[in-house]
């Protein structure tokens, strides 16, 4: 636990200490998974790749990789996007 705390940046530590939501302070992405067929991603930078079996979304610092079948973007706005389809995996890659 201590080690983890040491690796955190100042902003993160501040957010942690002040109990502020990290998505607001740090711009961390919010990934909401509803069952296995609906994912809502907030706080992202943009789509890097999109096919019906793979969606790669760039967030601040990391990429979110969604693998599945028949993937479809229900809506795509500046703030959030909703992906539906048969989702097999969600990965965070650097």
């Amino acid at each position, binding site marked *: 636990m201590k080690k983890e705390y040491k690796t955190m940046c100042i902003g993160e530590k501040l957010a942690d200490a002040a109990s502020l939501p990290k998505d607001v302070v740090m711009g961390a992405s919010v990934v909401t998974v509803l069952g296995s067929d609906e994912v809502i991603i907030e706080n992202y930078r*943009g*789509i890097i*790749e*999109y*096919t019906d079996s793979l969606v790669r979304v760039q967030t601040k610092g990391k990429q979110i990789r969604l693998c599945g079948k028949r*993937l479809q*973007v229900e*809506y*795509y706005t*500046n703030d959030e996007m909703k992906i539906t389809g048969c989702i097999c995996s969600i990965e965070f890659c650097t």
Partner: protein
Amino acid sequence: MIESIIRYMRGYVKIRVEGESTERFLNLCSHHKIFIWGLAPCDTAYEMYVTIDGFRKLRPLIRKTHVKVALVKRHGFPFFVFQNRKRKLFVPGFLLCVSLLYAYSSFIWDIHFEGNETYTDQVLLEFLEQIDVTPAMPKGRVDCPQIVKEIREEYDDIVWVSVSIEGSRLFIHVKENEDTFLDEDDMENSARADEAVSMENVAPADLVATMDGTITEIVTRSGVPLVHAGDVVKKGDILVSGRIEVLNDAKEVTGYRYCRADADIYADTQLVYENTISRTYEEKVYQQKEQRIQFYLTVGDVRVSIGSKAHPFEKYEVSTEEYTLKLGENFYLPLNYGKIHVKSYQTEEKKYADRTVQEKLTEDFQLFCQKLQEKGIQIRDNSVRIYLNGDVASAQGTLYLNQAIAEAADTEIIEMVERNEEDESIRSDN
């Protein structure tokens, strides 16, 4: 749902984006706040929906990202209007539709009753018709408080009425007085009791046996009991006398006092039961191919029919189904339709099976017993048996009952005048 209606009203298009940097195009769209939905990959391209405003803003993005955008389909009301711009009558028709809808909604088309149990909808409707409240009347002429007043005045049993207009429906909620019938019953009972009391004062009566039997229980309230439990009585025997002897100190009868005898007297009686039914019966066998159906429609006095009901059948059944077309619940139109069905049949003589006959006779007997029990007659035993003789089946036997056998009859009035005179003559002799 609301979102899709708004989208439809504003109009939207389906576009197909093709090129090398389609992802960049998507990101630019979101950056320029162009709302995209229904994004789906299609071969090497993407298909998506975008609003008309969004579509107009796409040009610089297309130029920047070197993608090809093709319009696949147009959706929404603005496109619908544009497509039908040459249909001259469409707009007047639409306006007429709206105006008719508005005009028709200013009439009462239906009258709905709730809470009425004794007064049927039909009765209340007829009354409303008398006071000029009918379906298809203008809403403006409906005076709810007046209707309430009229209904209250007409029907005493209705203790509460609420009249309201809901859309084009007149909603009448009534509450009936549930105690009305109870009160009537009570009044009848009390009247009967009063009558009995007055009768008691005027007409003395004995209690006589209505049938032969053996007394099992006797509880006398007034009068002199002449029988006891265990006595065998015949029909017409006096059970309780309404004439009470007045004795002097020497135990001699000096006079009579009369009253209306009252007692509960139960006796064991016997009842001969016999029920005979025929074992043969006629069964109708309908001829599937020999039938006529006529459909008809009646508008006012004009009747239009399809098909014929003329037939050469010897034995036939005619059934008619008729329906009246109505709007809502109570607005009947002068339009009736229905069908007349003529079915030919042949009769076949059949015989009931032993078991069926037994079941029928048993059922009849049980019904008979049930009726007796409803009258308060107790069935102690029975010796009823079923006999099957050729074409006739019968249930015969005796029922052993226990029932009230007393019946009021006028008391014989004995005049004591002569006896008094005799007494006086004896005294004078002395």
